[in-house]
């Protein structure tokens, strides 16, 4: 439980950090340290140099522009949880942050670190897939933007090059209701969107047995215009369940009569279309089929596949309800 020796560097600016990464041999970026430090303490990683970016000013903001919610490299889970814009308009992000580890870890852990770590057991990657997020990598030659679909390459492997820092995550802004939209960041009038992340864990603070992130955008006729489905800890990399998305896209899940008519007094009960359950179940099954889990202490392959199904169905239902709740959330 004591890390091997390393040299510690704490650059004061992004330029300095990038320069250090260029100069030093065997250097690792550290932001919150909540994945890296455990690996060091278990002596599973032994980089010669650690470049701690956590003191660099200006990287800790959450801002919403017309097209994107922009999450800086040093935004912590706690900051995400406390953000008003996130609570109002991106409840799926709040769902995700809340089920990560415990408050002590969340006070330090960053969203960018969570994604950059490339661990399929981490929760944010699935959500970022459902939201069609974009990763902004800054290297010696400047910025480049990587779509989430191209970002995760395998267990602890991402599109980031050595010497690059993930400086920002961009999430396309939502339709008129809560939840990010997915798509190109542009939206047509009358769209509504909602999303939800549901994680099954053995106890609080545990990594997911399985997790499902679903983001739905409905057009003004109530049909699903776009759907995003991401899955946690069900394969060697985070999974985007494209077939499930296809099943949902174009489907009418809400009873005719417009949104208002469909909203029940009860927040969680909307009037679904007669075949909505069937469609949701088909999508959930498609999500399960996209998984490739391994048996471990969290359960058998069969169990995990089924949990992908159950959680996708539940997350879809919740996303749908949220898309219909005018205040979002």
């Amino acid at each position: 439980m004591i890390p091997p020796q390393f040299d510690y560097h704490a650059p004061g600016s992004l330029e300095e950090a990038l320069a250090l990464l260029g100069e030093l041999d065997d250097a690792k970026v550290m932001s919150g340290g909540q994945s890296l430090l455990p690996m060091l303490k278990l002596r599973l990683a032994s980089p010669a140099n650690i470049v701690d970016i956590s003191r660099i000013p200006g990287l800790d903001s959450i801002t919403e522009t017309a097209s994107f919610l922009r999450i800086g490299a040093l935004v912590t889970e706690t900051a995400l949880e406390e953000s008003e814009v996130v609570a109002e308009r991106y409840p799926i992000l709040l769902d995700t942050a809340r089920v990560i580890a415990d408050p002590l870890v969340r006070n330090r852990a960053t969203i960018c670190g969570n994604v950059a770590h490339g661990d399929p057991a981490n929760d944010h990657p699935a959500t970022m897939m459902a939201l069609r997020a974009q990763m902004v990598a800054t290297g010696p030659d400047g910025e480049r933007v990587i779509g989430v679909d191209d970002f995760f390459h395998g267990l602890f492997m991402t599109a980031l090059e050595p010497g690059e820092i993930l400086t920002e995550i961009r999430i396309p802004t939502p339709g008129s209701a809560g939840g990010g939209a997915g798509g190109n960041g542009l939206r047509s009038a009358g769209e509504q969107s909602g999303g939800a992340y549901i994680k099954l864990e053995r106890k609080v603070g545990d990594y997911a047995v399985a997790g499902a992130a679903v983001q739905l955008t409905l057009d003004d006729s109530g049909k699903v215009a776009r759907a995003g489905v991401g899955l946690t800890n069900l394969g060697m990399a985070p999974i985007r369940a494209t077939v499930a998305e296809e099943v949902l896209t174009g489907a009418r899940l809400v009873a005719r009569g417009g949104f208002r008519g469909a909203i029940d007094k009860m927040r969680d009960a909307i009037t679904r279309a007669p075949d909505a359950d069937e469609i949701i179940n088909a999508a959930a099954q498609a999500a399960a089929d996209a998984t490739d889990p391994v048996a471990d202490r969290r359960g058998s392959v069969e169990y995990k596949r089924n949990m992908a199904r159950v959680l996708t169905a539940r997350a879809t239902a919740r996303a749908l309800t949220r898309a219909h709740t005018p205040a979002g959330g």
Partner: protein
Amino acid sequence: MSDAKPRTSAKICGMGHSMKRKEDPRFLQGKGNYIDDITLPGMLWLDIVRSPIAYGKIVNIDASKALEIDGVLAVLTGKDLEAYNLHWMPTLMSDTQMVLPTDTVMYQSQEVAGVIATSRYAAADGVAAVEVEYEPMKPVIDPFQALEDDAPVLRTDKEGQEDNRIWHWEAGDKEATDKIFAEADVVVREKMHVPRIHVASIETCGCVADFNPVEGHLTVYMTTQAPHAIRTVLALVAGHVGLSEEKIRVVSPDIGGGFGGKVPVYPGYVVAIAASVVLGKPVKWIEDRMENLQADSFARDYHMDAEVAADASGKIRALRIKTLADHGYSDAQAAPSKFPAGLFSICTGSYNMENAYAEVDAVYTNKPPGGVAYRCSFRVTEAVHCLERVVDTLAHKVGKDPATLREENFIPKEAFPYHSPLGWEYDSGDYQAAMDKAKEMIGYDDLRREQAEKRARGELMGIGVCSFTEVLGAGPSKDFDILGIKMFDSAEVRVHPTGKAIARFGTKSQGQGHETTYAQIIAEELGLPAAHVQVEEGDTDTAPYGLGTYASRSTPTAGAAGAMAARKIRDKAAKIAAHLLEVSEEDLEWEPGTFSVKGAPDKSVSIQDCAFAAYTNLPEGMEPGMEATNYYDPPNLTFPFGTYICVVDIDRGTGEVSVRRFVAVDDCGNIINPMIVQGQIHGGLTQGLGPALFEEIPYDEDGNNLAGSFMDYLVPTAVETPAWETGHTVTPSPHHPLGAKGVGESATVGAPPAIANAVVDALAHLGVTHMEIPIRPDRVWEILAAKGVAK
């Protein structure tokens, strides 16, 4: 049966007052003094190289790279210890265990070598740099396979050991029991495993060994629940290297949880002591979490095959249990010597039956040694789980409500003292009263109606009942000893001239609140305010000899000793009071804190007046001072009991079990501090919830520990823990001086079967009669899927 009003005022704060814990100000301010807070001048660090494999030969240990690291001073191996004949040590069960191996490793994470360095960091780097070459062998992991004819004999070091059996133990009349089974209307049977778990106390184990080469004196600051016994063991095993008992001092400072896991001696302690003796400097050793979980003594691991014979109406006639106990590499339990299977023969529990027979076979496997009594009076947890589960199976089989079936089989309250078929004399009990209270608190009948409605809708809800009987307070000297030392305990009370007191005990609190409850006992008996009684434990140089704190024995033994010592002082005080009031002793009346003259209540002296007089104004011929000691040898054990009722809901999609409600009604006799008792029950219930739903240390076939860190060893947090609802009845112990019984462990014992019974109850209509603990969601889901009810 009702709660008596406290006899003492709030100022005196004797029994029955919820006095705030005297130890808490220091704990809450982070001012406790734990092992790792102790730093001595010139102190060195020990860190331990551990085996990655479960079984194999050590071909070579190369320490040269470690010794090149700045700050690394020495690497100790089994061969080094062999030179002093310190490479083996006895366990408390008279088995043997390696300190460090000379040629073979027997379990994963076994201690292989000790690295001594000038800092914790250098020691850790040294450990990583020691190169050990192993020749792996095929380990024996499954205890059933361990007993097969072709299983390799693991303990080839033990002369005459021809197989992997450690011992066979049995209790009861086999023939008579078999006869009842042969003729019984109904027989039910369940096979079950109470799996290997770990106490996982917040503070891991550690010590600072400080050998003074000039004086030949050894002080060991150590995380131990039994400092006196440890000192004696050290004197016995290290006498040949010059350590004798008067030159050994064991100090047990504040302890961050023991739960039975800090009774044994672990190799790390011995290596630290050896290193300090060899180097003549203080040496500190502190385990990390993974070492603690992977190598220190486990608990439970009993495979039980239980049968109940009954008549057609469900009246229990007999119980038969066959058990396989997996002890790992060595029998390193900490049970009383004459009880290799602990107090497992309490397995007839709260029920009146004609006969019973229980047997246990213990085996060696390639797993860490142990079998400690985790918050449990020596195997009571296993016994209660087994009985309470199989009694539910009987209820379902004869179609009776499990609460009703229990009530119909309870030992009636008139039957106490009750002689159980397996030889115990239960001191007192009123099981129906606890059951009635629990049912009323939870609204039992309404819950059954709700369950029926939910079942009709396809929802899964279950109600589990457990009516346990505990056995604790080991114990009477005729039966109970550890390595020959009788299991009495002790108190030494000294009242100072100003009427304040110090009381020292042979036990050692690890969070139980002794500094408060013992002070309250003295307050009760002497009428001195508890706030004026300073309690000390844990230093063998100052505390009277005792066997320590585990198995809920502190109140039954040392607590009783405290009361008896206080009574001796009160007797002396009475003589002094008579002298001061110039009356004869017979003319005095005592009410806590004051002697007054019968019929003239304004003529009185306080206990403080008597204390002052004991030093200043004595009656002729009386020995000065005000001090008494008592070594208390209990006449019997005590038998607390209770009924727990649990309500669970099961998620048909995920298999998750949520404990919606849990009512615990305990009867621990007279209560010293109600708040502390409640705290003990809350903690105990949570430590019962853990093994019921979360905790387990499984091994793969190569002997790899699959839950060796808190990533996979799932200790419940506040989030998983339901809001416990507690209640109590009071049935005093007739033989304990205070009528108290002990309570530290009842809840850990009673909670797992209540929870398991609730889950099985939720699934009973599907034909489910048993589920193994921990009841993980994936296990539940597999049943739901098999029965076609998974959503």
